[in-house]
């Protein structure tokens, strides 16, 4: 009996590892194919129904942008200027200064000729006390709030309390938004009555030329680390997410550019502390709407709407990956009753298990697979079929999945005008499983350990 187990166990483990990698990369390819179809359809729709017309329509839905800042003296004014210059018929910008210790507030007051206002705040979500609100006679769409420090979630909730319009979008001071980002992101709300939230594709800003008029000149970042992240963004955050809404189960990564219906955000209690804000919020939104039995959609817009600087050095990237992993686990754990729960429809029975298996647990399973492969590679002749299959399924299929995503992007969206950039990106996609992926897995393992130890730096 023991001999039988000893013989069977390694065999079972080997094939389980192979099956996992096959499913992971197969799902990635399937989602890319699905996303390509959805993107093509979207582009056809946009071509027949131009965005410029939305700007002229009296029926567009107004929107509130909430920008939480803290000790961002250098960049706050430029960020607010960027938001005020966006192309959208009617919107309001609420800047919440979350108790900055530097001169952020003073810089804003001087730059926009703000003066204290007696704005009445309807406290629908509890937040730390507001010290003062400021408005400008020159810019009626701008409101600046000075409040006691309470973390990003608290600042965003304060912005929600002040939001006047039915749609809300929280933005970050470091983001560069496309000029028509709001038109594109709010379009699904006009199209369909049951849209609860929309998310826009995020693209790495590194390497692009940014002018006061917006992004001018899109090229690939110089460093290999940043280039690898371009492939990762493309595969995970664009095609990975574009394929999911069709299955009724879109989840947003933390820090995604997204627009929500304000009434729904208030109904689910706004942003919460000690969790990945956007990811956890979407989980709560799914949960709330499914429980109410209301039909709803969360839509992904494939256009690049928001450009974000990605970490160019290993230390910063390590910190970000650890944080993402910890936040994802935290949010998933909070909503564990939804796991494999058919009461929550596709979200409970498909998307959450998918997330758990292929995103949350990926570092553990994949690294175990790599360790197994390393052991097998020490005695390759004994484990020949496994070694060959593993190389094929984990390395080559993974590389091909990345390359297909890059090719599809070139065919459909054509983001990089220079052939050299595109070739470099394809090279990165082909090389991603040979080192970079293992590196990020190791960092994510650290994120899992942080979460297990109960470390919480989320709102620091």
């Amino acid at each position, binding site marked *: 009996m023991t001999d039988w187990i000893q013989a069977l166990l390694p065999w079972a483990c080997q094939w389980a590892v192979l099956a996992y990698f096959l499913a992971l990369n197969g799902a990635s390819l399937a989602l890319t194919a699905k996303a390509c179809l959805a993107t*093509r*359809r979207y*582009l*056809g*729709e946009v*071509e*027949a*129904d*131009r965005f*410029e*017309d939305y700007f002229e*329509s*009296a*029926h*567009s*839905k107004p929107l509130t942008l909430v920008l939480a800042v803290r000790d961002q003296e250098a960049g706050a004014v430029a960020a607010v200027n960027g938001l005020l210059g966006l192309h959208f018929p009617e919107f309001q910008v609420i800047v919440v200064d979350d108790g900055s210790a530097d001169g952020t507030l003073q810089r804003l007051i001087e730059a926009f000729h703000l003066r204290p*206002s*007696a*704005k*009445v705040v*309807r406290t629908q979500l509890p937040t730390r006390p507001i010290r003062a609100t400021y408005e400008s*006679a020159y810019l009626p769409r701008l409101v600046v709030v000075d409040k006691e420090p309470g973390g990003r979630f608290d600042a965003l909730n304060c912005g929600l309390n002040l939001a006047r319009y039915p749609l809300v979008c929280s933005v970050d001071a470091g983001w560069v938004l496309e000029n028509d980002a709001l038109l594109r992101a709010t379009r699904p*709300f*006009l*199209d*369909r*009555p049951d849209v609860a939230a929309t998310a826009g594709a995020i693209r790495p800003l590194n390497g692009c030329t940014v002018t006061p008029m917006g992004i001018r000149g899109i090229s690939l970042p110089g460093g290999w680390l940043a280039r690898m992240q371009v492939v990762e963004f493309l595969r995970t955050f664009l095609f990975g997410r574009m394929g999911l809404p069709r299955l009724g189960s879109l989840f947003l990564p933390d820090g995604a550019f997204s627009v929500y219906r304000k009434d729904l955000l208030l109904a689910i209690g706004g942003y919460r502390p000690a969790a990945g804000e956007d990811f956890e919020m979407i989980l709560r939104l799914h949960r709330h709407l499914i429980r109410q039995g209301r039909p709803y959609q969360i839509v992904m817009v494939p256009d690049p709407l928001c450009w974000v600087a990605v970490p160019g050095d290993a230390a910063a990237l390590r910190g970000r990956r650890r944080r993402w992993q910890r936040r994802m686990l935290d949010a998933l754990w909070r909503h564990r009753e939804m796991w494999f729960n058919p009461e929550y429809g596709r979200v409970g029975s498909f998307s959450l298990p998918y997330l758990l298996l292929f995103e949350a647990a990926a570092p553990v399973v994949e690294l175990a697979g790599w360790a197994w492969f390393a052991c097998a590679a020490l005695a*390759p*002749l004994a484990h*020949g*079929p496994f*070694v*060959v299959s593993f*190389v*094929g399924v984990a390395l*080559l299929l993974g*590389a*091909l999945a990345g*390359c*297909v995503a*890059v*090719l599809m992007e*070139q*065919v459909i969206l*054509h983001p990089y*005008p220079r*052939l050299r950039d*595109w*070739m470099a990106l*394809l090279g990165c996609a*082909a090389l991603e499983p040979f080192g970079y992926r293992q590196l990020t897995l190791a960092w994510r393992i650290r994120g899992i350990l942080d979460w297990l130890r109960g470390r919480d730096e989320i709102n620091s």
Partner: protein
Amino acid sequence: MTAAALLRALLWMFAVAAALVGLMAAAGAWIQRQRDRRDVYRAACRQRWEQEIVAYLYEGREPAPFMNFSRTERHLFIPFLLRVLAVLSGREGTAVRKLYHHARLSRGLSRRLRSRWPRERALAALEVGTFQVEVHFPRLLVLLHDPVPFVAHTAARGLANSRRLEFASPVLDWVLSQDSFQLERQLWILEGFGPGLLTWLDLRMQGRPNPDEREWIMFAKLAASYRSVPQASRLVDMLYFDDPELRILAVKALAALDYAEALPGVWPLVADPNWVLRAQAATALGILAGPRAVPSLVELMADPVFEVRRHAAQALYRLGAAGAEVLRRVAGDPEADPFARDLARERLQWEPAAAP
């Protein structure tokens, strides 16, 4: 497994993978080259056409340069004309439409309207509607039932943009049958028919014993959008409906029309149990009754619902001197309702002369 077999298998796999990546690189490079060539060609064509169309529209030149297009040029010229027409109307718009017909650009439209690709069908429908290719309007009626929503939507827009009320009935029926589109989008389609649609809609509703509730919604919203005073009496009738949503829309539309004769119907709404109706009544009273509305608005300043107080304060503020005087009094009164006092202060802050 022997060492040689293992090595051979690995080498084969890497070779196949490298070949696939190489194939993708070649395909991508080819696509890139084609796109670059097309973009350069398109930019050159557009630069030429921009000058020629200005000469055609404003200097009275003959449309000769647009007469002999190759197939590729025709494909590029149609989107160019669509963009030009999006910013032109009146005489210039008519001239652009004439140019489209002169250049016989509608060739192939019937094939495109039947294309198996939704994008192609939608673009053809857009072209028919924008350039008023009358011969293809019946095909747009068929496309209203297209299984792809955005194709049907484009067909409806095309028919509405024709401004021919003979198509109003099928388009309105299509609009009313749609649950997948937001109301705002549907209104946008109907606005294409122009203000004449309101009279038509009024007649249609009169001819029916029980018009669809959404027809009333469309009617009220379109009346407000077109500022159409002849339809105001019908809106006043709506004030007495049971459905609060219809009453809210009627109040909003009457305020937009500034129709003072509606006051007897609006005034009682300040005591309605529905807070949205009270809030809208506050705004409407400020517009329709002027300073006479002050006592009612002061009462609404102490309403239990925040939004009603805000609307009342805003209405008082908009009244000018009379309203500012009341706001000042409320803001300075320590016995006033605290919420009302705060809102009064908020409204007054941009009025230096009126500040307490």
